[in-house]
């Protein structure tokens, strides 16, 4: 029995050392750009890009398999940032058509307080309680549309913000 103690101790130490070394030398390099891209993406996993979540989207972007304009909630600003990060020319013409950000809007006539929408909201932008009317904080809403899909009464729509003095911008002068 006493012989087993040093034998097993030695065996454990040797194998542990071997494993540690293997972990260091045979490490699978993850492209660091993936992490950086992931940090840029909204992280709401809304799936509007057609990929399973923001991590998958970041991997696809890093491999160059997805266009930088893939994320509708991120809008033009995100596309510009991604193009800068990946050092590619962004073709923003595809996004020209979209009029800018949209926010979820709950129709007060239809909402029955079922709480389904705020359970799926990835940014906790919906406030409400059971059998109480729900409302959306536009400043926390990313327009991902997950609440639209779960509303049993089709009471949620995505709308651009109402025109306001603060949001009004001078148009580009018409060129000749």
């Amino acid at each position: 029995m006493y012989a087993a103690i040093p034998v097993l101790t030695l065996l454990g130490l040797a194998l542990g050392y071997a494993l540690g070394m293997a972990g260091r030398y045979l490490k699978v390099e993850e492209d660091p750009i993936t992490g950086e891209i992931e940090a840029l993406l909204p992280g709401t996993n809304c799936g509007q890009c057609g990929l399973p979540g923001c991590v998958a989207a970041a991997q696809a972007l890093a491999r160059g398999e997805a266009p930088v304009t893939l994320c509708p909630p991120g809008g033009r600003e995100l596309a510009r940032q991604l193009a800068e990060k990946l050092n590619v020319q962004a073709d923003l013409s595809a996004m020209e058509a979209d009029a800018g950000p949209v926010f979820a809007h709950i129709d007060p006539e239809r909402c029955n307080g079922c709480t389904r929408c705020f359970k799926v909201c990835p940014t906790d932008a919906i406030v409400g309680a059971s059998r109480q009317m729900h409302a959306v904080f536009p400043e926390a809403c990313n327009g991902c549309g997950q609440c639209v899909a779960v509303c049993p009464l089709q009471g949620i729509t995505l709308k651009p913000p109402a025109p306001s003095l603060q949001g009004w911008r001078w148009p580009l002068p018409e060129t000749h």
Partner: protein
Amino acid sequence: MWSFPRTLSFRGGVHPQPRKQTTRNLAIEPLPLPRRLYLPVQQHIGAPARPLVAAGDRVLKGQVVAAGDGAVSAAVHASTSGQVLAIEPHPAPHPSGLPLLTLVIAPDGADRWVDLPEPDHALSLSREEIARRVAAAGVVGMGGATFPAAVKLNLGTRHAIDTLILNGSECEPYLSCDDRLMREHPGEIIDGARILRQALGAERTLIVVEDNKPEALAALRERLYVADAIQAVAVPTRYPMGSERHIIRAVTGREIPAGQLGADVGVMVHNVATARAVHRAVRHHQPLVSRIVTVGGGAVARPANLEVPLGARVQDLLDHCGGASMAPARLLMGGPMMGQVIPHARVPVVKGSNGVIALTAAETRSADPGPCIRCGRCVAACPSGLTPLEMASRIRAGDLDGAAERGLADCVACGACAYVCPAHLPLVQYFQHARGALADRREQGQHQERIRRLAQRRRERQEAEARAKAEAAAQRKAERAARRQRKTAGKEHETEA
């Protein structure tokens, strides 16, 4: 004795025709009370004020009807006595004509003031008390920038201010409201200067007037004592002398670094009309309820300088001035260089409206813009030392970053470049557009940042909830197991027994 720098000027600038002859010799006359007053809750830079009254309430002149909300905001006061008819959106004096929450007041004709405390000796007050009274009176920068004056005064407590400049340059063509104010009420302006100086602790105070207003200079100098250490200074007539950066450069020789304010170089600039409002606010406890407006332009039958209750509509002013002698080709609020085009005359006069200018077609630029020939006149005219043609070509190509690199943020939108452009290019509109687009981009970036943070928090919270649930389940399981064990142990005990 401190002496001026040799040249009281700045680089660039233009000499537009002043066109002040029609109004500069017309005494200020009060505008009769119109049928309705429209008081927007936002007449200043910053957060909109919060209404304190409801539709149907009776209000007295000078009563607070909307309180300042937030760090940068200003209160709004009823400009006459009467009844609040509604609080609803109305078109704002803005090129877009978009609505702004507005208090509609029906005057009762009595024009009865709210009870004001007795006037008191203002020059022994602390700077906090002065700033408090200025804030309570809803005073904002009346030269057109409309930055809340009390916030600016408090800025002075964070920076050491050695020079206070009262801006009476009035470099915009057509306008003569500040000129008239200096000629008719020099004492109130000088008293305002003393109060502001007291609040800021400035060593020297200068009232700066362009040399095309000799009567105003004479009126001020007549009222100034040597012991006051307030000087009235004449500067050459050159647009944009009235810009804060350029008046500081011209008078003190100090250059404000990009992205900083006058306070950073120890200078604070207030308009002369603001000084008068400060005099009324601090010495007489009177809030800002009226202002002087020049009504001019070739399309006005009888140009005038009017003392207008805030909230009177542009149409009321034009009607008082004999209506439009012809349909105006363009209606402006403010001067023709930096004023805002307004879509129609149903918008109210607000705290920053120094002029209502109705231009005829002959007075507006009729030529269509042509291509840029890179003549460089805009570069020579730019008082901020920028290259407008380069910035505009980049903005046209959608390269906003390129325009920003060329100093877009340092542009004061004075319009000198567009004024001299032989191709009639709307250069300032390019710059305004680019600034708006960059602001949008910044806001979108901040929004995305917030979304990321919120999504992250939610994930963390859900993970913590799941963990807590698992732990609770494990604990319950352990307890159940322990109970079972005890039970079986008990049974074994029994059987053994």
